[in-house]
């Protein structure tokens, strides 16, 4: 299939449709509105369901119900709306249900603003709702990845019976790039025999539940869940290492910021006597590619790490844990909808090289 010019939000919706998403439930919020708008236009034409719920809370509970039948379903929102969904997400994780949740982040806390941000990293990777659980969190940096990772998110969610999240930001959602939709090879269909699809008495009942009155039972269910997380961490961690060989400084960044960092590296490459800079770009934020950072930290050439985010510093904590004190880890961030410029990041790198410890 030939490439088509997409907005990031449209790329997610189209990829979901191609991945066999049967129903979308959501509630509008900037800057992700092209996702429900695209579903609203396309789903009725192909006999699938688009429903604008009365709230984000309603939408996530519709997802809970539909996912219980083993149907591929998606919801999307932006930061404040994703906060509203957290109770439902926790129930979905506790009930071992697959689904895909999209967060096109905007500034927070509170209603915040509508400009791009990465300040929901903690919420996405450290739980968000109550209880012991994780989401598998994918962080695309290009529109091609928004399409491919959306398809992958559905496959991974079903394979391990866990909710997965696509974590983008307002720029990725709104910008346009050519996208090729036939690049992705779907995984074999997962076992869906757990799904509650009606019972004529010929098989045991499928019960979808997250309530355990017996503490030992809940502990054992949670241990099973974490055993699955261990397998996911082993098999599904994704990371890009860019110009890392022989680098003095390794920048850690994901999504939009990683693209700005790449343009900085391209500039520095052209300058004589400029420091050699590499980029580690986590593509899954959970599981976090800690091993990649640990290996980089062990390289002799690497003097220090710089984490750049559109937040006051969230992923930097995972980088620090992974580097484990082997090398200094510094942070630069803009927040509130401000995007770090190439110049700001470059200046930060150069000041570190001049021994500008802070």
């Amino acid at each position: 299939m030939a490439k088509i010019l997409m907005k990031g939000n449209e790329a997610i919706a189209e990829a979901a449709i191609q991945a066999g998403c049967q129903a979308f439930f959501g509630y509008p919020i900037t800057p992700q509105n092209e996702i429900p708008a695209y579903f609203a236009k396309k789903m009725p034409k192909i006999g699938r369901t688009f429903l604008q719920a009365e709230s984000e809370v309603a939408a996530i509970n519709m997802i809970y119900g539909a996912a219980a039948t083993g149907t591929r379903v998606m919801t999307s929102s932006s930061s404040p709306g994703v906060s509203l969904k957290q109770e439902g997400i926790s129930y979905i994780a506790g009930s071992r249900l697959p689904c895909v949740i999209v967060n096109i982040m905007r500034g927070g806390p509170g209603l915040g603003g509508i400009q791009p941000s990465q300040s929901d990293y903690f919420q996405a990777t450290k739980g968000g709702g109550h209880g012991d659980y994780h989401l598998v969190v994918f962080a695309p940096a290009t529109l091609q990845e928004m399409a491919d990772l959306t398809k992958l998110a559905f496959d991974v969610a079903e394979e391990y019976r866990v909710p997965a999240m696509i974590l983008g930001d307002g720029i990725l959602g709104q910008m346009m790039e050519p996208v090729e939709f036939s690049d992705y090879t779907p995984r074999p269909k997962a076992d869906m025999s757990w799904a509650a699809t009606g019972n004529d008495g010929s098989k045991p009942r499928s019960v979808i539940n997250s309530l355990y009155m017996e503490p030992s039972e809940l502990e054992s269910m949670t241990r099973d869940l974490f055993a699955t997380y261990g397998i996911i961490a082993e098999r599904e961690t994704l990371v890009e290492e860019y110009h890392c060989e022989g680098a003095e400084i390794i920048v850690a960044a994901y999504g939009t910021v990683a693209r700005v960092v790449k343009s900085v590296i391209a500039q520095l490459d052209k300058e004589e006597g400029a420091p050699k800079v590499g980029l580690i770009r986590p593509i899954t934020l959970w599981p976090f590619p800690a091993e990649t950072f640990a290996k980089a930290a062990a390289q002799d050439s690497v003097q220090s790490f710089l984490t750049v985010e559109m937040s006051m510093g969230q992923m930097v904590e995972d980088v620090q844990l992974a580097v484990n004190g082997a090398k200094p880890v510094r942070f630069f961030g803009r927040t509130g909808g401000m995007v770090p410029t190439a110049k700001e990041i470059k200046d930060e790198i150069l000041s570190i090289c001049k021994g500008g410890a802070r």
Partner: protein
Amino acid sequence: MKEKRITILTGHFGSGKTELSIRMALNSCQQQKTILLDLDVVNPFFRTNEAKEVLEKRGVQVLAPRFATSQLDIPALTPELDGAFARKDGHLIVDVGGDEDGARVLGRYRRQILEQGYSMWAVVNLMRPFTRNHQEIVEMVREIEAATGLVVTDLINNTHLCSETTVELVLQGQRETEAAALALGLETPVRLAAMRPWIPASMDPQLVIEMDPVLKTPWDMESR
């Protein structure tokens, strides 16, 4: 072709209305007083207001709904905008939001627009979803006309695939857009908006608007 005082740019969102309206304003301001009105109430990102500085330096007056590009995503149409439609002088270029939803806002100014005379351009990029062939282009035009109560007078072929554009793609867009214009019974020939490397040699230069994008992503803006 006699230019009308008001030129309205419509089309599916992401078809290139905003870039085209900026380019038209920059071209128009060399001949006459030009006002660029950003009526996009749909999309708060990548919009005319971001090019305001460049435009104002060249003498273009830029007007936008209050709150546009601010932290509130509820744009309000101010009396200042009414004034732009009420006055009789200068070229008024109106950049309208995507789809029929964005175009609906024009309904409020319909009376002034009809009184003063207008051209309404529908911008088409064949590489965008929902305008993949001439049938879909016709469908989009009908939806915009129904929402605005105005008539699309011109189709503009703005087919591109960013840096992966080819002359062949542009020509393919031109053919489909011309087929749509024929189906709609439009009298004016289909214009082409394209960047220089992709302008087909066969195009009548009179019908070509050469593009040079003003709006950029953060990683394209070196040492901003």
